[in-house]
């Protein structure tokens, strides 16, 4: 078993450092200004930049802290990622954290002693600064050692000359991810039903229904390895990943960290690997000729890889 993650590298701490620093500076400014602000301040602006909503001023530092902690946590979770997906993910998180860190204190500062604030300049400044630092992260962070190329290191399953074998498995969403999905799904459904009831546009309900069908359809993937190669198919049947035996360049078992290696769960397309990622842990990693590696989280990955190696070593009658 090998872990695709790179060892700790100074630059991999860059996203976390930027995020934490921006949050601490923003929070310090906000706390310093809090006593000089009225209890209620403008906290929401319309599309044209005119303030259209207000709230208690203490919510700003609370939100800054919450968003900052979330962003720092995400950058730490993605730290070990070597896939481009994790690098891009860290960059997006840094961009968001910097935007909030610029926006929240300037919004407060502008309202000191009852002044009015125009939200557009800090919004622009925050976005530009965030994107610039995000770009820096894409270029610098995660430039750790390249993951080792994984040729077939598995011992091929001993097969007799005429013996036929099939390996069947499944990639099933982990319990935590399934619960999170169900909660989001319920929340979205409730929101849409409420919106539909308000507006009378009942056709809107089709949206959560379609989403639910897709979510249920992708909860489980069936994986089969036999003399025709590898096939990974979701419960609803399509889209399936098929890798014919003669397109398999190698296979190995790997340990997957969904957020770090693939930036999340589900069907993940990265620069170096495509993943069907349903949970952390054991997975098969199949090197494809002329295509990205295909990584699928399955139990009993060792047996799957051993069979794939055996079938590849002895390409007999189809």
């Amino acid at each position: 078993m090998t872990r695709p993650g790179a060892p700790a590298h100074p630059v991999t701490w860059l996203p976390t450092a930027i995020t934490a620093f921006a949050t601490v500076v923003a929070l310090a400014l906000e706390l310093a200004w809090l006593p000089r602000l009225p209890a209620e301040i403008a906290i929401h602006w319309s599309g044209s930049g005119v303030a259209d909503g207000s709230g208690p001023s203490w919510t700003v530092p609370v939100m800054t802290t919450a968003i900052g902690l979330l962003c720092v946590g995400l950058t730490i979770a993605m730290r070990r990622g070597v896939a481009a997906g994790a690098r891009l993910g860290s960059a997006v998180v840094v961009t968001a954290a910097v935007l909030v860190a610029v926006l929240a204190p300037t919004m407060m500062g502008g309202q000191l002693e009852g002044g009015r604030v125009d939200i557009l300049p800090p919004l622009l400044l925050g976005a530009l600064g965030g994107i610039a630092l995000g770009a820096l992260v894409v270029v610098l962070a995660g430039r750790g050692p390249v993951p080792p190329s994984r040729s077939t290191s598995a011992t091929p399953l001993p097969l007799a000359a005429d013996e036929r074998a099939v390996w069947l498995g499944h990639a099933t969403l982990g319990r935590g991810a399934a619960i999170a999905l169900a909660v989001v799904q319920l929340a979205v459904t409730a929101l849409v039903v409420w919106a539909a009831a308000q507006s009378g546009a009942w056709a809107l309900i089709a949206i959560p229904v379609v989403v639910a069908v897709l979510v249920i359809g992708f909860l489980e993937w069936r994986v089969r390895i036999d003399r025709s190669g590898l096939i990974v198919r979701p419960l609803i049947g399509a889209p399936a990943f098929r890798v014919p035996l003669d397109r398999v360049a190698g296979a190995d078992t790997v340990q997957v960290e969904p957020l770090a290696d693939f930036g999340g769960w589900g069907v993940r397309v990265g620069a170096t690997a495509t993943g069907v990622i349903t949970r952390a842990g054991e997975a098969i990693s199949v090197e494809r000729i002329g295509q990205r590696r295909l990584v699928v989280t399955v139990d009993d990955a060792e047996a799957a890889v051993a069979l794939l190696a055996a079938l590849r070593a002895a390409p007999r009658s189809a």
Partner: protein
Amino acid sequence: MLLRVDPASEAPLFAQLAASVRREIARGALTAGDRLPAARDVAAALDVNVHTVLRAYQELREEGVVDLRRGRGAVVATGATVALELRDAVRVLVADARRRGVALPTLTALIQEEYRS
């Protein structure tokens, strides 16, 4: 789960398939409640007759290894993992036999004799 059949072997295909399932349960790749794949899928993947697969499942059902339920297919039975508990004892026994230079046919004969007494 890994299923394998060798047409060159003397054992009938259905018996080889049943043995495959038993082996997967013994090594923990299949546990109680797991569903066996649909017979026609196994038949297609291994290029054997569907009735061969069904006969293997039937044999496993008679042994109490799987439950056959209409609509749900073959499900590994709750009692099936008992074999797993014997595995460690078997491992010790085989290691002991190897150390003493006892060949497999002799060991098998000893087990059969003990089982029938």
